[in-house]
């Protein structure tokens, strides 16, 4: 653990519950409490409480905020209604991904949640590129929790009545047992669930309240990673970086329809061309034969043994009880079922392209 690591508002809370703390994104964070597999399964079957206060919570306000943001990311914010979230990407002019994020229209401003490890760079980028007159506020005084799993809605609605009315990718302001909270129905596990922004000064009380519900246990970063991998959700700094484009990363859905036609977002030339003609390589799911996982950095080989791709995330799926991975592979061999050869530490592994998500999403969407 580096001396420079910051402490989360819930640091003492995690330690009191037996968390093993590790250094991540400049913070001391809980990697696990009782064990990654048990925590993973608990989240899939009941409800898990995650502390994600290391993530950056930003407010972007001002008359030109919508226009200014549209110049930096490929979402159609014009049609984003109040209280709606969009998954989007900060892009470089060459189409590389600076970060992935959630942006919400919240009345007169936009609320943005960015990755913890990249937030300082994101803020600098936004400050440099947003037009003057647009105000950026880094809400350092806010903590962020996620309550994920099939029983999350019941547990949360006991303390914040009305949250059960939210549908996937919508949010609103709620009274959470006397604490003002911004709650959205969203998350990073593939399960139904919520993300809850509360003042840091109140987060221990809120965490106590939620963890006190019989359905809820605190869950560490380890299970957060295995859950998101099963859900086929990319992790910035591993599956995405400035050398990958949205089309390569299978995130073409994040380029809104109007933006495809109009362009005007960074990297539009390259990304538009890849949308039309396809990318040369694609991020794909892999099933690996046997029980041994392949990890980030393992090499994808062609029939002659040449390196043609790389594993960017890999681990053991507690739900499927087999190793799974995400890897960049040549687009021509990225169809589900195609066989893949992987080399790791001199050992050859056989695998096959898998459709993602590996474990189906269970989002609660608006009924048609």
């Amino acid at each position: 653990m580096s001396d420079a690591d910051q402490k989360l508002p819930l640091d003492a809370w995690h330690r009191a519950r037996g968390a093993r703390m590790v250094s991540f994104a400049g913070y001391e964070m809980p990697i696990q409490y009782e064990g990654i597999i048990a925590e993973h399964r608990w989240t899939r079957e009941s409800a898990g409480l995650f502390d994600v206060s290391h993530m950056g919570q930003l407010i972007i306000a001002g008359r030109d905020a919508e226009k200014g943001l549209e110049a930096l990311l490929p979402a159609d914010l014009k049609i984003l209604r109040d209280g709606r979230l969009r998954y989007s990407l900060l892009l470089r002019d060459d189409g590389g991904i600076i970060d992935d994020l959630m942006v919400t229209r919240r009345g007169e401003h936009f609320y943005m949640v960015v990755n913890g490890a990249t937030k300082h760079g994101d803020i600098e980028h936004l400050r440099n590129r947003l037009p003057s007159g647009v105000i950026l506020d880094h809400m350092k005084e806010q903590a962020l929790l996620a309550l994920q799993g099939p029983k999350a809605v019941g547990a949360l609605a006991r303390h914040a009545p009305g949250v059960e009315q939210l549908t996937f990718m919508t949010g609103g302001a709620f009274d959470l047992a006397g604490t003002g909270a911004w709650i959205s129905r969203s998350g990073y596990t593939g399960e139904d669930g919520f993300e809850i922004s509360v003042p840091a000064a109140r987060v221990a009380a809120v965490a106590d309240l939620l963890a006190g519900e019989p359905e809820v246990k605190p869950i560490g970063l380890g299970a957060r990673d295995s859950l998101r991998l099963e859900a086929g959700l990319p992790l910035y700094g591993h599956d995405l970086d400035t050398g990958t484009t949205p089309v390569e990363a299978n995130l073409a859905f994040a380029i809104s329809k109007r933006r495809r036609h109009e362009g005007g977002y960074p990297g539009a030339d390259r990304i538009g061309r890849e949308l039309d003609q396809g990318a040369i390589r694609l991020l794909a799911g892999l099933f690996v034969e046997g029980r041994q996982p392949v990890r980030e950095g393992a090499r994808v080989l062609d029939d002659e043994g040449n390196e043609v791709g790389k594993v960017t995330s890999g681990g053991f799926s507690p739900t499927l009880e087999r190793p799974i991975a995400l890897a960049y592979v040549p687009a021509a061999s990225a169809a589900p079922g195609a066989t893949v050869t992987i080399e790791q530490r001199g050992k050859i592994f056989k695998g096959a392209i898998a459709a993602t998500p590996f474990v189906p999403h269970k989002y609660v969407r608006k009924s048609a």
Partner: protein
Amino acid sequence: MSVYYSKEHEWVRVEGDTATVGITDFAQGQLGDIVFVEVPEAGRQVAQGGDAAVVESVKAASDVYAPVTGEVIEGNAALADTPELVNSDPEGEGWFFKLKLADPGQLDGLMDAAAYKAFCDSL
């Protein structure tokens, strides 16, 4: 019968010239949920301090070194399908491999249970 411990968190149980090797309870606790173990096959020569086995947790892969030199007599076949034995019974059913000791003198360089406990407490 005596049990010895290495600074790499392996244990060695010695009966005659046969040594059974595994990882300690401390090691399995640090690794977390174990999902895969690769043990050496009978007949393989392993050297003290050299790679002997691989253990993978949900999060990461780790090498297991041979705490003593010798010829492997048997790898624990049960770990192929039930690697979680290393978590539930690390110093019993979760053993990794047995070998024929080439140099019993190497045992003198290992720790006994009390010294190993003090070593872990100092970490």
